């Protein structure tokens, strides 16, 4: 559901040319910065991350302190986001929730990347029958919904915490990444300098490590920001279905689920974490677009 799958499909067309690394990144940076939307998104993203890290440290409220007298307060000066049904400050809790949501987001995304890179690089690099087999497998399962398998995985482990959520969200989400990486590797493999290296006798792991993988870095960075929204929303969905993280810890998804039942009287409890999710997802999308334009000028839109 992202543009990486276009990238995957048109594997031959969208490869980054093997320019010398330093100027590729400098060029990319310059192009990125010219895109106002992407810069704004990047800024907001960093701001949110910063808020998540800093706010709980400087907050005067204990996020876990139960204080019924103050329950369900609307936004105010002392409680910028109001309080929840236990009287806990939502500003601090939302920041902490962000730590968990974003943390799970990156964790799962990196896991997806890890699996995808291994699978895709293996398939693309080795080629031949192995590639054929692995790709047939991938073709068939492409687009398999991650949610049923995430639910099953969580049911197996029983307790939902940070790491089990990361695992659950990544086991069935790596197909797109694998295909993209394979596409990249295959294209890069055909380049002259790689063939030259092979002819000279450079070992396969050196070729992989020094030439191929670093040149896929661009695509991987884009993939991170394309997968991130899916993972964050996935965690929100799982929390909504009752499979959220253990209290008193909370993620944005589990906070939204907490707030849904009371939405008529106290809508802020569901709205705030949902908006946080939406903002992060939007930013990630813009950043991904910006990166894609920056790293490959040919796909730039007018």
């Amino acid at each position: 559901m992202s543009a990486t799958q276009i990238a995957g499909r048109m594997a031959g067309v969208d490869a980054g040319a093997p320019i010398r690394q330093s100027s590729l990144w400098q060029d990319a940076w310059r192009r990125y910065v010219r895109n106002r939307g992407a810069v704004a998104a990047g800024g907001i993203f960093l701001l949110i991350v910063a808020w998540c890290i800093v706010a709980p440290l400087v907050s005067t409220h204990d996020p876990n302190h139960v204080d019924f007298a103050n329950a369900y307060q609307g936004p105010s000066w002392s409680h910028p986001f109001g309080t929840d049904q236990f009287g806990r400050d939502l500003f601090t809790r939302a920041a902490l929730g962000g730590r968990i949501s974003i943390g799970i987001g990156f964790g799962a995304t990196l896991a997806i990347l890890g699996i995808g890179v291994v699978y895709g690089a293996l398939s693309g690099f080795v080629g031949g029958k192995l590639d054929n087999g692995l790709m047939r497998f991938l073709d068939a399962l492409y687009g398999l919904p991650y949610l049923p398998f995430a639910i099953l995985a969580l049911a197996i482990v029983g307790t939902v915490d940070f790491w089990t959520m990361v695992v659950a969200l990544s086991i069935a989400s790596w197909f797109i990444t694998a295909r993209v990486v394979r596409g990249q590797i295959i294209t890069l493999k055909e380049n002259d300098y790689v063939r030259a290296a092979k002819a000279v006798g450079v070992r396969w792991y050196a070729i992989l490590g020094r030439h191929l993988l670093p040149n896929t870095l661009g695509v991987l960075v884009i993939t991170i920001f394309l997968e991130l929204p899916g993972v964050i929303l996935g965690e929100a969905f799982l929390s909504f279905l009752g499979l959220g993280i253990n209290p008193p810890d909370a993620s944005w998804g589990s906070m939204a689920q907490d707030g849904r039942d009371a939405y008529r009287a106290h809508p802020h409890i569901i709205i705030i974490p949902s908006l946080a999710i939406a903002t992060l997802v939007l930013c990630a999308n813009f950043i991904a677009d910006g990166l894609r334009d920056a790293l490959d000028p040919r796909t730039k839109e007018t």
Partner: protein
Amino acid sequence: MAAYIIRRLVWTVPVVLLVIFMTFMLMKQIEGNPFRQTERAVPAAVQMNLERKFSLDKPWYVQYANYVKGVATGDLGPSLVLRDRTVNDVVKEQFPRSIELGLLAFGWAVLLGVPAGVLAALKPNSRFDYGAMFFSNVGFALPNFLVATLLIYFVSVKWGLLPTSGWTTWEHKILPSFTLGLVPMAYFARLVRGTMLETLQQDYVRTAKAKGLRWRRIVTVHVLRNSLIPVVTAAAPLLGYIITGSFIVENIFAVPGIGRYYVTAVSARDYSVVMGLTVLLSIIVIAANLVVDILYTILDPRTREART
């Protein structure tokens, strides 16, 4: 090309078997007694009888073999929790509703998303363009449970225009399918806009313009057809999203489909239903991929060589 199709078809069999195997193994790892739905402990005799009835007392490989045999003959077994029904019953009764929901959602996406993308591309950087892209971004990013809750509150409870939940008359079907269709809608809008813009830059389009062909004819005959190819290929991952989203949407809107029951089945440890639904969903995705790949090969000759 026929060879390609046959090769793909042949490969789906081991993949399906693998999916069944992995789902089976996953299910076996889940602790929990499907026969203990409440806090009451199940007396030993009752537990024994139940396990015997559902063949859970046999070794796992026997259960697996029986299960595969069942799938091959189209018998997905009895439900462990819904005692009066078999998994086939559940699928037959509830699956069509999910399909309908998914198709309607897809319909919304095509109906609203594609024209939005086309129009935006035809007038790039206009107010319409920015507006359409803004809405599409919002639709994409807002979690669907929030959208659903708000829609029900405003449209049903406050203004009384549509029912809050259920799936009987056509009025019931509007809100849930719209909610589910938001993300695909947004995605299509962006995608179509992007590919159309790209196509519009292509030489053959500029040539056609230079030759003096009517703009409308250029757009409809040449540009649209080529821009819509990616829409076809986007269908597969979107199917994944629709299935995922349906779990939430069916839950909130009380749509009696399989997405709603899946979560209940997992927590109730209704092994056979969970297995049946997971396998079914996987087969659908696999089939959809096959169809899309074939369609893509037909539509875009450029990729035929790349597909080996």
